[in-house]
């Protein structure tokens, strides 16, 4: 039986931000999360989510003469979007079940 992927709150928040915005850098995710994500932990979470297949990332191409390291931009995968939708349905079902 295939392992069911988990979707903790922080990963859910990241997926929600990425699904609504398309592609974002790590610090942009932190800025848009209204305190939900911390810049000290977001990269580890992003790395874990990429390993789980929830998102993909690509390194930006720096223009000629630019300095600094190239940034990494993250976007959700199909699996990530499906996991987020499934989580939404699950919580909805759970709420209905508990309230009735």
């Amino acid at each position, binding site marked *: 039986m295939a392992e069911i992927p988990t979707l903790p709150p922080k990963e859910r928040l990241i997926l929600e931000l990425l699904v609504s915005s398309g592609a974002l850098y*790590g610090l942009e995710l932190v800025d848009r999360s209204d305190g939900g994500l911390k810049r000290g932990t977001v990269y580890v979470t992003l790395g874990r989510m990429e390993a789980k297949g929830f998102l993909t990332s690509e390194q930006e191409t720096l223009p000629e003469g630019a300095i600094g*390291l190239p940034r990494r931009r993250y976007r959700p995968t199909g699996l990530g979007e499906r996991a987020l939708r499934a989580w939404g349905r699950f919580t909805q079902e759970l709420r209905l079940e508990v309230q009735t």
Partner: protein
Amino acid sequence: MTANGRARLPGRLLMRVASFCFDEPALTKIIQPAIADFQREVLAGGSIGVRLRGYAALAKVLVLALFVPSAGAGAPFTWTLLGLNGASSLALLSPILFAGVCPMFGPFVAGAVVAGMALAVGLHAWNSRHPTAVACTRRIYSKDPEINISSVPVGGNIGGFFFVLASSLTILLGLPELRGFVLGTVVGGGALAWGLFAWRRSHRQSSVTAVVLH
């Protein structure tokens, strides 16, 4: 930004140091994105406060990447402790364990360390001269550190003798009030072993015949 600005761009030294500590996936997926975002923030005109917050965040990223294997990469400290290098993990954990129990069992710990090292050297020397096949479990090839008693040949050989001797001495040293019980089990066990040995010796022929006839 000028060449002077390039020299002042934060994170370059950190990236260089990190390249010695982390593997490629950890560097490219965790460390480098964090430093790159920080550099962009500073280039955009970050104040001292932004720099301080950035450095604090980078420190946290490095610590997490060192210890959190679920980050999907890196975590060299955790991997070392949990098993990519099992022998060194045990070598590291043993002194910690001894240091932890030393305040309560000082002389016993010292005796156990000395006796354990002497026994290890003795066993190694004996085994080098009398190599035997060692039972291998499925997990023996895994990198997880473990003390696997099933991999130690404790049959009717020198390994078994040392195992019994060490177990008995451990109980005698740790629980001296049980010396009578230990003595009784040694005498009883010895008598039982002698009885079994004598019985099997006298019934060896008939057992083989029974198996062949069966």
